[in-house]
């Protein structure tokens, strides 16, 4: 299917002109096209924020839940419906701030979902407060003397927790972002793709040009994504170069493979029990 099939039309898009979110939407649609996924087989789970509104702009099933709970809801869906392709997509505030705990623990679970983080380093929808990835010194109305907490490195976190697939891309590179998303969906287990994108409305520091100057491709520099130590080094490197591409990937069974029930069936679709089915259960009380 071509990209357009996945883009809703007739829906007014509430993003600001010039925002990186538009490119990510294109990349997602392109990725679904690459994967040739029928829209009804895909569930896009989002939280709350500007990024999270993407559930309304892409033509697949949608669960637009609570701020921060994106990954939890996505995991619940996948556990009972391994037949569906589940993508969790939201902002950096949602996934790394409010939702930090679900991220960590679903990496541990290694549920086969793909998490796409729209990382604009601000809380866009609530008017520009610092997000967990904001740089030290960044000033906002809520941080008038500048951020003093160190930014979260989502890639380092995910790699240290041994996530199955960890990548980063820049919204300015649509085709590459699409490929990384497609690769993340293909990879069995928990995939995180951190997409850096400018927020022209609030973030006056990390602009399109700022990223453009700094991003580089780790593949081109010969990085072996199976090497966890090397991946961590790239993720933690300070300075003016920002890695994109697949930083880390490991093979191995996912939650679905290891789970005695999930590996067998999509439990949500199994027929409801009949009274006779319950005899063995109730017999124990007799």
């Amino acid at each position, binding site marked *: 299917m071509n990209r357009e099939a996945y883009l809703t039309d007739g*829906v007014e898009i509430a993003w600001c002109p010039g925002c990186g979110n538009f490119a990510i939407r294109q990349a997602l649609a392109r990725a679904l096209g690459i994967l040739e996924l029928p*829209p*009804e*087989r895909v*569930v896009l*789970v989002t939280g*709350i924020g500007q990024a999270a*509104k993407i*559930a*309304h702009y892409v*033509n*697949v*099933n*949608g*669960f*637009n*839940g*609570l701020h921060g*709970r994106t990954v*939890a*809801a*996505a*995991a*619940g*869906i996948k*556990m*009972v*419906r391994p*037949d*569906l392709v589940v993508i969790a997509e939201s902002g950096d505030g949602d996934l790394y701030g409010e939702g930090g*705990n*679900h991220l*960590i*623990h679903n990496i541990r679970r290694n549920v086969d979902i793909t998490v796409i983080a729209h990382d604009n380093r601000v809380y866009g929808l609530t008017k520009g407060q610092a997000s967990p990835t904001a740089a030290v010194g960044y000033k906002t109305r809520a941080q008038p003397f500048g951020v003093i907490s160190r930014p979260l490195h989502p890639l380092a976190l995910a790699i240290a927790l041994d996530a199955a697939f960890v990548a980063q891309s820049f919204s300015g590179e649509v085709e590459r972002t699409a490929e990384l998303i497609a690769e993340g969906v293909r990879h069995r287990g928990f995939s995180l793709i951190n997409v850096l994108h400018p927020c022209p409305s609030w973030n006056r520091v990390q602009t399109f040009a700022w990223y453009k100057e700094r991003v580089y491709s780790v593949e081109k520099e010969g990085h072996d994504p199976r090497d966890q130590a090397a991946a961590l080094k790239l993720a933690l490197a300070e300075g003016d170069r920002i890695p994109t591409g697949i930083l880390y990937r490991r093979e191995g069974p996912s939650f679905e493979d290891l*789970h*005695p*029930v*999930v590996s*067998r*069936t999509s*439990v*949500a*679709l*199994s027929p*409801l*029990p009949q*009274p006779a*089915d*319950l005899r*063995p*259960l*109730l017999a124990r*009380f*007799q």
Partner: protein
Amino acid sequence: MDLVVRVAGAAGQGVQSLGEILARAVFRCGYFVHGEFSYHSRIRGGENAVTVRIRDRPVFATSEQADVLVALNQEMLELYRPWLQEKGYLVADERLISSGEKALTLPAEEWARKELKQPLAAGVVLLGAAARLLGISLESVKNAVAEVFGEKAEPNLQAAEMGYARSDTKPFMGGLPCFGRGETMFLTGGQAVGAGAIAAGCRFLASYPMTPGTPVLEFLAQNAQAYGIVVEQAEDEIAAINMALGASYAGARSMVTTSGGGFALMVEGLSLAGMIETPVVIHIGQRPGPATGLPTRTSQENLLFALHAGHGEFPRYLAAPATAEDAFYLTMKAFELAEKYHVPGILLTDQFLVDSFVVVPALDPGKVAVQNHWLSPEELEKMERYERFALTESGVSPRALPGLSKHLVLVDSDEHDFYGRITEDLGIRKVMVEKRLRKEQGLAKELEAPWTYPQGSLRGRTVLLGWGSTFGAIREAVEILNEKEDGYAHVHLRELSPLPTEALERVWNQAKEVIAIEGNATGQLGKLISADTGLRPHRLIARYDGRPFTSSGIVQEVSR
């Protein structure tokens, strides 16, 4: 017949197993039984007691007084001796009791240590002796030991026999004849909730351990493979409810189980369930608060909280089972109504109900019809356009599952239009609020009448009004009160949202006086009824020290 046996010891001395053995042995003899556990929030040491009531008819309440006290250490002996009936018997190791008491003593610890090489078996020795005292057959006791200890039955079987054989006593009550038992079952309230969930087709449970919600988690985990259920221990309660809602959206009947403190963390998710009209069943095992409170004790403090939890307005079904039997059926009903009306179904139990063993008429899952409430792929295929939140008279929109047809399914926590798209159209907003709230009318029609005893008019009677697990104690109290003077009645609420206001108005119209009996300090049921009807109970009998009500306690308060 009403015999009460209490076994008390430290945590780690196996009090719980001893209680279960005794209760099971009695159950095997054909009697009704109630086993109530009272314990401290720790793993070893502290105070643990189980109170087993043996009756020839159903029994759903515990008792302060005991006829037999099996004390496993000095502390428990002293703590519980005041509650031993004057004619009661004390059973203990001979080292604990000074001579001259009305007691059955054995060198149980010595035998266990020296002969069985298993010091912990001393309790079973004493239990064997107590069983003989009660007139229970040795066979029933040994069967129960085998059931409870499984592979570890030896040397406990020997221990039971030892206590039985070597205690040279006459049965306390002239012997308990075994008779063919009817169609009964023996289980805890927690098991009943778990079994009800499985019977209703629960396919997903995510929860974080929290007393007394955990037994339901563990019951489902243990039956997960046999019944095809995904049971996941979540990283926290917020994850639990959001995972459950995800799973439910995808088609799995879903549940969470917790206590008041864990539910507090689920409140935002509850509101989400209300907005996306996605069913979920929430089991709250109540314990005393605020905050951590008394983790292993019982209470009825979460009624108003559970009813008003969540920002924004949306209907919910809330049931507070009266007994373990009721818990089974109401759990099934909560699943069904949650699925039929796309609302959260809340089950409000408590530590007393969850942990107590009881004997109930055999559970019959056929009594509650379990059926799918979503559109089949065939029905969907026929539809031109599908809208998850289509406007209907009942407020219930036909539900589709994702991935079963070409139609996409979109749900949104923002206010949304009929399709599920985020909207800021304030006209649609109004219509959607009304649509959601309209479901309450349908729900109200599903309610059963409050349980009333004795049947017939309440005119001239003082009504004892209760809800949830206090059922047994209140019923017994009314029976006792009516023995003296036939002027009392018992009205019991098991379904509290929607509130059966008409039935309550009848109660107030007829009754001479209404006394609310509640396991909280502020009279929450009374407030709830008054909020919806303006009717207020005339008196409140409140218990909020963490212990369950007993009939004698209620009788005393009523008679004040």
